[in-house]
């Protein structure tokens, strides 16, 4: 029984971390209509930034500043924000698929940089030497994972509240206005390009937070963690959950990550022994079917966006 709880805590931690990243993407895509195809670069910047700032010194690369953990995490978020700011200034004039392609390129470049810049990131063998915060007091076991889950859940809740407030504010209305019709927004004297950049950087900082927590949880990050698969996974979570709805984003993260892991577990448990070797491939097919089915029959996601016209109609919420 304790094993089941211990696994569920572990599962919930990873799912919550991913949910934070999905919330970040929801601000960019769901609310502002920015097609970010390079989620993993900002996630990775957060992870690498946090581990470099908070780690212990290693012989073969920079970093290991051993910063107080919350500072390291903020540093990771700042790294993601800085990257987003630079990328945003360069690419946000692009629209839709062009933006997607260029941000995807940024993510691939980021992965290759981390793989090759050994002096910066430890290269392909990854970044080690990070001590998880408060490990002395809590040990490495179940208790630690519980405490860590609580911290992650608090941050998830804080992110959720922040975004709900943000999209409910006049600024949120402006973001949606830009998403729906940029020219109309401009005609009202708004500056779409600045708003787009603000939303892009804010969303990326949130992804950086997720990345920082992810790196902290494993006390390790390597270029294998920042492959394009992760971008795809986070997008799948948002699409299934419902773009434009923060509840949907969180729910989608838990649902897709559960599908991803439970299908693997169930196949290993129930598939006949001869089929065991092929469960990996079967799993890919199943996950693909879920997403395609979702797009065909419920493209708005499980929790569709609720359009709020004015403050008064929000009174109940």
């Amino acid at each position: 029984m304790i094993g089941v709880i211990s696994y569920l805590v572990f599962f919930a931690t990873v799912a919550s971390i991913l949910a934070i990243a999905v919330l970040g993407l929801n601000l960019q895509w769901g609310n502002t209509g920015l097609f970010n195809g390079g989620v993993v670069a900002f996630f990775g910047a957060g992870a690498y930034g946090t581990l470099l700032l908070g780690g212990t010194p290693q012989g073969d690369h920079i970093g290991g500043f051993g910063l107080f953990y919350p500072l390291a995490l903020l540093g990771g978020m700042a790294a993601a924000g800085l990257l987003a700011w630079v990328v945003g200034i360069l690419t946000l004039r692009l629209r839709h698929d062009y933006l997607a392609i260029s941000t995807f390129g940024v993510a691939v470049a980021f992965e290759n940089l981390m793989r090759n810049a050994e002096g910066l990131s430890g290269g392909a063998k990854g970044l080690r030497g990070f001590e998880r915060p408060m490990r002395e007091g809590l040990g490495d076991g179940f208790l630690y994972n519980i405490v860590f889950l609580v911290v992650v859940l608090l941050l998830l809740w804080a992110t959720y509240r922040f975004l709900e407030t943000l999209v409910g504010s006049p600024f949120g209305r402006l973001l949606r206005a830009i998403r729906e019709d940029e020219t109309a927004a401009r005609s009202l004297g708004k500056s779409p390009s600045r708003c787009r950049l603000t939303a892009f950087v804010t969303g990326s900082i949130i992804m950086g937070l997720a990345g920082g927590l992810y790196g902290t949880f494993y006390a390790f990050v390597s270029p294998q963690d920042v492959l394009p698969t992760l971008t795809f996974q986070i997008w799948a979570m948002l699409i299934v959950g419902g773009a434009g709805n923060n509840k949907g984003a969180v729910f989608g993260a838990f649902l897709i990550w559960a599908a991803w892991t439970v299908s693997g577990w169930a196949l290993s448990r129930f598939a006949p022994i001869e089929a065991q070797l092929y469960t990996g491939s079967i799993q890919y097919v199943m996950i693909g079917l879920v997403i395609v089915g979702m797009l065909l029959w419920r493209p708005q996601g499980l929790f569709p966006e609720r359009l709020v016209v004015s403050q008064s109609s929000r009174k109940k919420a």
Partner: protein
Amino acid sequence: MMKQKSGRLATKLSTAIGLAMIAGTAAAQDCTTRIGAVLPTSVDWGRPIAETAQFVVEQVNEAGGVAGCQIEMVLRDTQVDPKVGVDAAKALVELDGVQLLLGAVSSGVSMPILTSVTVPGNVMQMSCCSSSTAFTKLAEEGKTGGLWFRTFATTGVQAAVGAKVASDQGYKSVAILYKNDDWGQDLNKLIAADFAALGIEVTAEVAINDGQPSYRAEVTSALAGNPDALYLGLYPNEGTAAVREWLSLGGTQNMIMANSLKSDEFRENVGLQYLGNALGTDTASPRVASADAFVALYKERFGGEPNGPGLSNSYDATMIALLAMEAAGKDATGEQIAAEVARVTDPNGTPVTADASGFAAARDVLAEGGSVMYQGATGNVRFDANGDVSAPAVVWKFTESGTEEVEYLSLTQVDDFIASLK
């Protein structure tokens, strides 16, 4: 020691597990011990590694199982994604209660499993194929808790023997193409240093990324120094593509290959006629019957030679881990199993072969408190304090039907040669 009544029953290997389980529940053995395996079964070269591990489990069950219980290997796919691999490992440890975890292949997956699942959970982890030097460092810092082992000889052996081949062949200059991952980067660094120590000029060190449609740019820059020979630290897929371009651009056919290219696929896709001067290196089987037995067993079971990367390593990893489980006795914890690894790979112990009868022989010796020397598919495997192995080495070349040995270097020769490079 439990008497096995069903030893004969499960002789048909193809149905060994199923039969053994039926036999197990029917009679003396009414228990099953689960072990976990996290391997990239959705990747082409990962599936045979998992098959080989399963094959060992079949044989051990045929020999009566471990500590009187049949072994069930629960296999999970990593998708070469650290998140997925770690989750699978966590599920195996917490939900299936395994005390022994085999895997993973990629160091980038094995490492987070080690730091966030097996070490905190006191579970023994044995990898067939992770090669990163980072594990050695982690073990030196005492952070693996003695729970980590790998049967993949550290890249140092592979690099040293590759350099020896170049020097024996009289090559004065060599260009290096290496896979751009942790293994390839380590290998490149080590072999470039070894070449330098032997006075061989390295004209280019070029990283090859996976999955590119063409490697023309990389190959051209490797050609620029006009080297006597080409060193290939690549896997079959990108190796085939890169070598084809290399040859079509007029590069030399003098090639030295790492063991990862020891594959039929590579030989067929490049063409044997171009590989006449290509020499490969590998960690070797010892000159004992058990190594041949592995090849024979493998051929009988799978109908082909064990030519994929990591197969013999996977075989030995699984077998040693199960021997250690046997030595540790029933219901042993991961720590207890890990502590027994030394007793089943003792150079002064009774030699045992790497098959069902060897396992049965080992059981008798271990039951009397003795120690055994496991003679496996990759040699007389012996782990150092960090869970790393050294091994004898072999130089090989391709033939019509597979590969053929050119030269054999015993463990002492390998160690002496490595020492002479320092």
